[in-house]
């Protein structure tokens, strides 16, 4: 077993464990902290796959911005009493587990058919700022510009939604 494979399994256990932690913890703050761990392990996976730019962007955007936003929202919303009380949809929730299992089987069948056909892997592509910037500003120029409009719309929309009505 090579060092790369050992690192993969350690990171995989961390990623799955923290994802399960997000889903299972009752306190939303604990879930948010598990989410940070999960996002960090994904950044490590990106580094392992030589996607250096994405690893950096993952840490800045997810661990920096999105996780802080989640923690702020939890602080504003006073956690702790939202999942108490009788569960009216308990039967549906129990049904969710076999449904998720079915989804996994479907995904596994679909991915098997795509992965084990075709030629072996070519040499890894470098994923530094150079390569990804070249792709973004040539082949993906129009989507890139649309993304800037999307972010502007989100910014204005959030301000409109979060504003206190003074009337």
């Amino acid at each position, binding site marked *: 077993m090579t060092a790369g494979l050992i690192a993969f399994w350690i990171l995989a256990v961390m990623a799955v464990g923290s994802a399960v932690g997000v*889903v299972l913890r009752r306190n939303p703050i604990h879930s948010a902290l598990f989410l940070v761990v999960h*996002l960090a392990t994904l950044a490590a996976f990106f580094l392992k796959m030589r996607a250096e730019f994405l690893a950096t962007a993952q840490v800045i955007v997810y661990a920096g911005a999105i996780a802080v936003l989640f923690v702020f929202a939890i602080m504003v919303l006073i956690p702790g009493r939202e999942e108490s009380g009788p569960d009216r949809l308990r039967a549906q929730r129990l049904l969710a587990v076999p449904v*998720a299992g079915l989804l996994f089987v479907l995904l596994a069948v679909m991915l098997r058919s795509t992965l084990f056909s075709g030629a072996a892997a070519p040499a890894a592509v470098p994923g530094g700022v150079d*390569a990804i910037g070249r792709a973004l500003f040539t082949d993906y120029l129009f989507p890139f510009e649309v993304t800037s409009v999307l972010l502007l719309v*989100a910014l204005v929309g959030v301000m409109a939604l979060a504003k206190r009505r003074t009337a």
Partner: protein
Amino acid sequence: MVPAAYYVGLSAVLFVIGALGVLVRRNPLIIFMSIEIMLNAANLAFVAFGQRHGSIDGQALVFFVLCVAAAEVAVGLAIIVAIFRLRRRLSVDELSLMRG
């Protein structure tokens, strides 16, 4: 060098965990975090497939997913805060106003 199949399999597992979180939890914040897990699982698959085919396109797509996720979280959390101001409670089961 870890084979791409391992990464894609891991991303399938993470996606299913996220889907399960969306289905079983009642707190909209945790549902949002589960959606983030699903988005990240898709990102992992994108990068793994991009590496397998020797192409940068997978990484470019992940960049766009990151942008959309940031916008989605900002708008979604604003909506949750607005709902909480209106109802003083936070459970997706009670938000059945639009039920036919």
